């Protein structure tokens, strides 16, 4: 038997990894992948909580998150391809017409 909190902690660790990746990576695609990692971590939380509450709706939520992730991936990668076409780089520091 594994306490549900173990799953939650695992999910929190993965989420933190995703946030860290978003902050320090210097390649747009990898940054985007960090976001996907964060979504995955959240999904684990949902499944674990669904188990805790004995409510299938938590699992259904994960289903929707996957759909959203797929839609985001399609749009995001199209945007990245378009940026690459104009700038020939994936480094966000070199995509700098806009100052941040």
């Amino acid at each position: 038997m594994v306490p549900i909190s173990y799953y939650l902690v695992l999910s929190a660790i993965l989420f933190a990894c995703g946030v860290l990746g978003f902050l320090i990576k210097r390649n747009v695609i990898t940054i985007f992948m960090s976001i996907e990692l964060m979504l995955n971590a959240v999904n684990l939380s949902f499944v674990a909580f669904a188990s805790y509450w004995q409510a299938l709706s938590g699992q259904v939520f994960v289903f929707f998150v996957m759909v959203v992730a797929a839609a985001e991936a399609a749009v995001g990668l199209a945007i990245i391809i378009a940026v690459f076409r104009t700038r020939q780089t994936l480094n966000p520091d070199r995509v700098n017409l806009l100052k941040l």
Partner: protein
Amino acid sequence: MIPSTDYIRLLPELILIVFGLLVMLIEPLLGEHNNRKGLGAIALMGAVLSILASFYQTGYEGAAFFDMIHVDTFSIFFHVLIGLIAAVVILASFEYLNLQQIRYGEYYGLILLSSVGMMLMSSAVELVLIFIALEISSIGTYILAGFRRNAPISIESSMKYFLLGSFATAFFLYGVALMFGATGSTSVYTIATTLAQGATPLAYVGIALMFVGLGFKVASAPFHIWTPDVYEGAPAPVVAFMSTGPKAAAFAVLLRVLFATEAPGWFWLIWASAVLSMTLGNIGALVQNNVKRLLAYSSIAQAGYILVAFAAAKDIGISAVIFYAAAYAAMNVGAFAVASHLANVGEKYVTLDDYAGLGRRAPGLAAVLTIFMLSLIGIPVTGGFLAKFYVFQAAMQSHLTGLVIIGVINSAVAAYYYLRVIVYMYMREPQRDVPVLKMPFALGVSLAACLAATIYLGVLPGRILDYAMASARVLVR
């Protein structure tokens, strides 16, 4: 079986979807070099019909689709607001698309479909649906931001918006997960009943994380960093759309999540965010030379004012938020519509210097922009004044003196940069030759609509205010 009234409760969204599909289906039938104005007309018709459908909903309040959406005065108000924003932006885009050589009719389809998401955000009472609706509106605006494809700056702003937006969405989602963990449900009303029995730390953290996500969508500090860049790069009519529509919808969600669930522990979050937004927004705007960036910072500050009302007592606070959202939409869409007209081919003329001497070269346009600027400052007889007045009044009545003082000081600071635009228009000699195009009919109509709305809200606020009050009462029950 699903009763037919459920479909009426979804009617505005259904109409938008149908017209969005129609635009999409007709677009490939048009030749490569044909004008896309016809598609715009179809889209406009869809937006107008959905506004009418929203009015028609008045007799059919209630829950639909197994308690997924809740049609009430609150949601109807936001439906109409979003429909109006979409319609005005579509009108303002006719000329812009021609000028910038954007030949993709999908533009109109995207505006309609992302409006579907925004409308659903305001009526959804289930976090699942709220999340999906939020994503529809976000993804639509990510794409629209990159629509000036031949300009690298546009596609870069799209990328920036997309990356930061998805990042914020992940936080929102984690917040939802923790909320689900704390209450065992994702329905707003079930969450409310569970939270009423006492909130766990999980719920507090959940609310905070959800606020991060929503705070990003409404561009409130400290989640505002993306705003100036994205607004600078994105096509001007799109900025008019995304600085008002998604924002109004996100405020609607925030109202529902915070007040309908009686969520715990958000007061200081909102307080801090309001102060930061007002201050950072106004200070940032002081040094801007690019009008789009200036308006971006101004919209951060405006979000701050709205958040002040959140912190106030429930009913008057909520009605102040609703009123402010309407006034803000009118003046901001108007200001960006003017900016999009002046920007000309390739959005070349967007700095304050390009606006110098506008008072002589295009007196009508300058006058209109002046009114919007005055309204953004909060000068009487304009909607902006009353909106601000109600917000600060609500805060005063709730004894939030500190917040009101900060807000008033900020308004005074803000007056400087808005007035600066006016000063440039009327008192500076133009540095270079900036051509001003003839005002096309469609844009004229949309500007007139914004102007009328701004003045109407400033002179005869009674009906809207009553309506806002009624909506507020529905929400807190």
